């Protein structure tokens, strides 16, 4: 397993970002912290460039939508320290109707398409992104389909009556 324990990792982050992060937990051994969008890039840069931690590998960026809450969209970063073999999950929750967050493409080039995908499906606007266009959906789509309010099937379809399917 990893060469750095989650406690040590958390201690190192706390030294630098005291009061700016909160610990969500360690589900299945993966340290999960929450922070604000003001310091997310500084935190990612610190994790990447710290000589001990060396979180040099960006595994994934995605988002989760919790429509009933005050900060409905959470942007989720998975970062991996290949040197120490430790992963960390960072969450940033964005307030309703203000889905702006600074881009991580300044830290990793690979964040480019991950952020485009997150924008495409959740409408999170990554400020400073070099090319923030839709990526998998058509360009003239007007909605962000992975938000919870959009049903799987178009409710206006007339060819799929429930009674055909016994429901």
């Amino acid at each position, binding site marked *: 397993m990893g060469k750095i324990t989650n406690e040590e990792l958390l201690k190192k982050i706390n030294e630098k970002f005291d009061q700016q992060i909160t610990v969500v937990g360690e*589900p299945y051994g993966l340290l999960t912290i929450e922070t604000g969008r003001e310091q997310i890039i500084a935190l990612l840069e610190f994790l990447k460039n710290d000589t001990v931690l060396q979180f040099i590998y960006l*595994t994934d960026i995605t988002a989760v939508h919790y429509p009933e809450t005050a900060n409905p969209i959470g942007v989720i970063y*998975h970062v991996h320290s290949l040197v120490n*073999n430790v992963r960390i999950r960072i969450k940033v929750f964005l307030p309703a109707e203000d889905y702006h967050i600074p881009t991580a493409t300044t830290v990793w080039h690979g964040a480019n398409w991950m952020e485009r995908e997150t924008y495409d499906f959740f409408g999170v606007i990554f400020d400073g992104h070099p090319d923030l266009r839709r990526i998998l959906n058509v360009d003239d789509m007007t909605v962000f389909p992975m938000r919870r309010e959009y049903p799987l099937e178009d409710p206006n379809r007339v060819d799929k009556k429930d009674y055909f399917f016994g429901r």
Partner: protein
Amino acid sequence: MQNHPVYTDNDPQTAPSTLNLGPTHPATHGVFQNVLQLDGERIISGVSTIGYIHRAFEKIAEHRPFYQITPLTDRLNYCSSPINNMGWHMTVEKLLGIETPKRVDYLRVIVMELARISDHIVCNGVLGVDTGAFTGFLYMMEHREAIYEIYEEVCGSRLTTNIGRIGGFERNFNAIAFNKLRKFLKDFPPVLREFEALFNRNRIFFDRTKGVAEVTAEDALAYSWSGPLLRAAGVDYDVRAMNPYSSYEDFDFEVPVGENGDVYARFLVRNEEMWQSMRIIEQALMKLEKEPTDIFHADVPEFYLPPKEEVYNNMEALIYHFKIVMGEIDTPNSEVYHSVEGANGELGFYLVNDGGRSPYRLHFRRPSFINYQMYAPMSRGMLLSDAIINMSSLNVIAGELDA
């Protein structure tokens, strides 16, 4: 003498031209569009457009019970679907805290390594085709067929396999499956050796692949590359070795690493991985001899669908069957990230669960999607013909690219 055209420097032919490579171009082996600005045969710049076969799997997954998501994962990287299936099962098992018996782990390892071989057969064979050598592809294809026949014995289907269930396999491996597996292990090495003899020191293949699309380790890491591509660039990151799952820690294998990340290095890494996969399968067969032969799933009646005849004849099985199908069993309210070493790299599943019947959110970390984003930037200044073989050695699978 002078009745054929002569081009001079101020000829209109010197203006850059635009080429739509794809979406359906025979040389790209899938639905990929790249709009290229060409100066003669050299690429000035390019823009990749993807999403032509986007099927909204992540949205569909939010409306399906866990066991119905397996067929969706088949259609990610359809050249090695069993790895996707197993990755998904293991994600759910991690969420539910299910411990699988060793025999299940070893059987899974066999199926996953077969899938890796079949994926690399296609990728390296097609790389040969794109450089002008059709022979190797056909010789190797015969043995991909042998692998597909083993899948058929194990699960009944070939391409989109839907192998296994949460907790193990839907049925035990039969004797025919093991016989076919042993036959494959005997027949394939000479063919792979011949394939390597055909390519590894081939002058034409050298000229087409060596030094083409070189990638430094720094660039590969900055672009979050994984799998054979990252290893060809010199970074020894393999999920099987670093975060072992499915008892990979019991096996003795090597992680091949290249030097400069060019097309040739990727080819060599994939070939060597096939040898290592065969080594792993042989070890797994030896380990299986020490395990009881009748165990093929974990004892988790709440999540493992009972056999149909049990459902009709056994009250408990009927109850569990009903509960599983109706999704009435509580699951932990938690989130989990699990990754496996897919044929193209780290295939991750990020599953957020709210205790319900289906995931609250499921995200696939698809290696092809992340590997492919470097394609347009790295093609700058490259010859068009080199860009084509670069694409085949990236082994981008459209299903995994678009999800």
